[in-house]
């Protein structure tokens, strides 16, 4: 995982990229990467995770909330949330930082669309 290889990934704090803008339409986030001029549509569960990314919650805290809301095992939620957030990070829509780190930075470019969490239930 980018820049968090030496820490517990669950303790990383995800930030929305300053270069992303979004609206939530019918429960799905439409995210525009301003720098890359790309539009991504995130499914409902991914959108819930996106909503919970506020620059203060850790990945583990987000996973805990998702596990409770969707009635799934915390470990499953953690793995899926982490995978999803890492994909957002690869697509430069989000940044994962160690807990003590500051806010999100600006990136240069991005290349692909974001996908939704794999094993989490679809829809809500």
């Amino acid at each position: 995982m980018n820049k968090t290889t030496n820490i517990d990934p669950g303790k990383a704090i995800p930030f929305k990229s300053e270069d992303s803008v979004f609206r939530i339409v019918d429960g799905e986030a439409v995210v525009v990467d301003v720098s890359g001029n790309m539009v991504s549509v995130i499914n409902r569960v991914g959108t819930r995770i996106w909503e919970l990314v506020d620059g203060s919650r850790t990945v583990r805290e987000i996973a805990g909330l998702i596990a409770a809301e969707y009635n799934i095992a915390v470990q499953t939620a953690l793995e899926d949330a982490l995978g999803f957030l890492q994909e957002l990070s690869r697509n430069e829509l989000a940044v994962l930082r160690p807990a003590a780190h500051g806010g999100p930075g600006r990136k240069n470019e991005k290349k692909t669309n974001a996908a939704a969490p794999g094993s989490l239930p679809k829809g809500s």
Partner: protein
Amino acid sequence: MAHWELTYRCNLECVHCYATKRRAPGELSLPEIKKILAQLAEANCLFLCFTGGEIFCRRDLMSILRAARERGFALRLLTNGTLLTEQLADELAVINPLSVEMSLYAMKPSVHDSITGVPGSHSKTVAAIRMCRERGIRTAVKTIFLKYNLGEYRALADFARATKSRFVFDYLLSPADDGRRPMDEHGLNEDEICQFLLKHSGPRAPAKKRADSSRPEGSEPICGLGCNTFAVTPCGDVLPCLAVRQSVGNLRSRSFKSIWTDSALDKIRDARYAALKDCMGCEYIEYCARCPGVALAECGNILGRSYTACRAARAAMRARKELNRRGN
């Protein structure tokens, strides 16, 4: 996608401008604009394109852009660039719009300046594009081809490539608000459009305007106006799109939501190809880029005949036939 005309004031006097006679004595104030931005964000509007007039004629432009960015809009800016300064460019880089799109009509200063009516405007626009690019701001070179700059295509394309700008061009003009038809005086005639397409569109073009290369079904919507587009004028009128100059409400007296959900827009939204009585049987329809707003300006009816579109469609079909004859 919303287009928002922030002002009709402009420091240039382009010969083909459709808005030269517009006046908006009661431009929305910054607090009013902030209030409307909040309403648009609440309505899930995401893409916002600020245009004019010349947007940099507003001294509070940067405050408007910052407010829009804070509301989470993806911003496009249309400008002539002549009022951009190093300091404003620095501020613009922080705001980080999707793109800043600047009107540039020629690489020969004399040609560009004769179109804008202002000597020295060419060098300022070129400098503005470079200022933006130096700061990593994404830019587009926007050109309308007229009788006077047809020979400038290659130089403009090369400049766009050199500055890593998108090159966006058109050759169709809109009627002016005051009834003038700049296309007749300054625009390309059918032969010129045909030759332009043959020379610059490449072997695959002119493509048919319809992706599936078929005639439209009568049940198809003619346009996205009032559905996924709208426009706001400097004094707060809401239009179905930038080209259809019919207000469906004013944001000073009504909320955006109440205007957007008003039945006044339904008639426009419900317009289908079947209602285009003059067009459905036309042999050129597959090449037609008909604009309801231009039709409204030309014949008073968004469903009526657009002579500008007819001319362009005939030219495109002729060019296609010629390319077919040449084996392209």
